[in-house]
């Protein structure tokens, strides 16, 4: 599992040192506070344990800076500067180690970047990871993989990766009891299960087979989750990164999504979710049981320079600042003023 992340002059961050829960990690904050950057950085470090790609190369492909100039990932400054990111990790047998990537702002290619730390140990302990981006790719899966592999198209690699993960065939042997339960919950919510034909996804139920292009995007999300559970990508020891799950998801389906994510956490999947949505956040709060491991991370701009700061807390009530609740607070204040004018002021 991923224990910690440190950024120094990396993308939007001056300095960040954040510790993660081995269970669910919820990142909240206004736009431009680096939530997706955190998810991508950790995902890239997880992915190389399986893909064996170079760390700098993966970071470059996942972030996709202009011209693929990796030096552009260093936080902008008037003079040439260096930046770094460092990830701490712990294996199930208790071994703790880290890797660090150091860049300078004038670097053009990933080969110039410096990777230090326990790189060998990092790669010798592989684990599955999956990044679900905001934009749905399931309906666009046909031919996207071959296009991405042969042409230089302007897509961050997370979009190709998610399709690869979804196309993985089912694991050998019978599906275990816990996964059957989760698949059942999803099948009930989306009224069917997912099949693939010629690189195209369909929802299959009693009425027939419905191609994903005709399926509501919210159901495609449930379908993707179904595939990742069914094909064993999300097993104990794996990591799931989900950027704004609420996008195009009916609020009523959020309880289902959250219950699945909490169950995955109980099975030993480490989960990282970024969100702007109160309902999603509240569903996590309500679904948390005594032994669940959940941490809320608030990212916000502060200090004299408006740099990105963070605060982490194990309860939603204790999270401060809470950008989502602050928005509701602002609405309440304006409503009171509208209804009561200057009364009490």
């Amino acid at each position, binding site marked *: 599992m991923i224990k910690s992340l440190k950024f120094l002059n990396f993308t939007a961050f001056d300095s960040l040192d954040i510790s993660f829960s081995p269970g669910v990690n919820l990142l909240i904050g206004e736009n431009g506070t680096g939530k997706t950057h955190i998810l991508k950085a950790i995902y890239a470090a997880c992915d190389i344990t399986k893909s064996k790609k170079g760390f700098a190369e993966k970071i470059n492909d996942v972030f996709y800076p202009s011209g693929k100039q990796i030096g552009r990932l260093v936080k902008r400054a008037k003079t040439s500067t260096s930046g770094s990111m460092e990830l701490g990790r712990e294996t199930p047998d208790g071994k703790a180690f880290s890797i660090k990537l150091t860049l300078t702002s004038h670097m053009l290619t990933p080969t110039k970047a410096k990777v230090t730390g326990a790189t060998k140990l990092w790669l010798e302990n592989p684990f599955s990871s999956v990044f679900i981006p905001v934009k749905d790719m399931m309906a666009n899966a046909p031919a996207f993989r071959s296009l991405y592999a042969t042409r230089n198209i302007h897509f961050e690699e997370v979009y190709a990766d998610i399709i690869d993960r979804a196309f993985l065939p089912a694991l050998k042997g019978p599906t275990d009891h816990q996964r059957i339960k989760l698949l059942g919950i999803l099948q009930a919510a989306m009224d069917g299960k997912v099949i693939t034909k010629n690189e195209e996804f369909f929802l299959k139920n009693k009425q027939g087979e419905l191609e994903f292009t005709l399926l509501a995007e919210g159901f495609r999300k449930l379908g993707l989750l179904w595939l990742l559970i069914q094909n064993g990508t999300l097993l104990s020891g794996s990591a799931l990164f989900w950027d704004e799950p609420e996008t195009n998801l009916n609020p009523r389906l959020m309880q289902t999504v959250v219950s699945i994510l909490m169950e995955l956490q109980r099975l030993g999947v480490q989960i990282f979710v970024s969100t702007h949505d*109160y309902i999603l956040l*509240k569903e996590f709060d*309500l679904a948390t049981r005594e032994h669940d491991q959940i941490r809320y991370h608030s990212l916000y701009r502060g200090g004299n320079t408006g740099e990105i700061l963070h605060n982490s807390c194990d309860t939603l*009530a204790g999270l401060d600042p*809470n950008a*989502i*609740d*602050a928005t*509701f*607070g602002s*609405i*309440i*204040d304006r*409503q*009171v*003023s509208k*209804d*009561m004018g200057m*009364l*009490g*002021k």
Partner: protein
Amino acid sequence: MIVDADGYRFDFTDAINVFKFDETDPTSPTFHGAPMKAVDVIAELSDFYLFIEIKEYPASYDPDAIIGEKTCSEVDCPNRTKHLEWLKNNLKYKFRDSFIYRYAEDKTKKPVHYLCLLNFDDALNSVIRKTLRRELPIDKVPARWVKTLAQSCQVLNLDAWNRNFPKWPAQKVRAA
């Protein structure tokens, strides 16, 4: 004018009168004394009345914790749908009974603002406010009505209260 109610202290600096409306002491001149639900506090301002109801919910489930007049187990706290339904009904009927009581006192000449002080976050308070306004009702009233029951209804936590009402500062003085 200062009043203590349900573990909170309010200072209505511009009030004509403030009192505990659900007073249970029979020797008090403001003893309630009717088999009706009652809001916690009423404040009289120059042009308005304020009906104030306070509700505190335990952070975690405690079957014996008191919420209003009932224990958590009686309210069925772990079932959040029933929980919020009970709360909404409680707030609704307290207002209506208090309004009828005040009608009998001939104290309904000024419009009423109903202020509910809850310990929920701003988002959840917004949801309760919306439901309460619909059911009191405030927003959509029958065409036959020529008067309003309440001028407005606000559901606020302590932070939001103090943000919005600097002339009526509130603070927690003990666990409710």
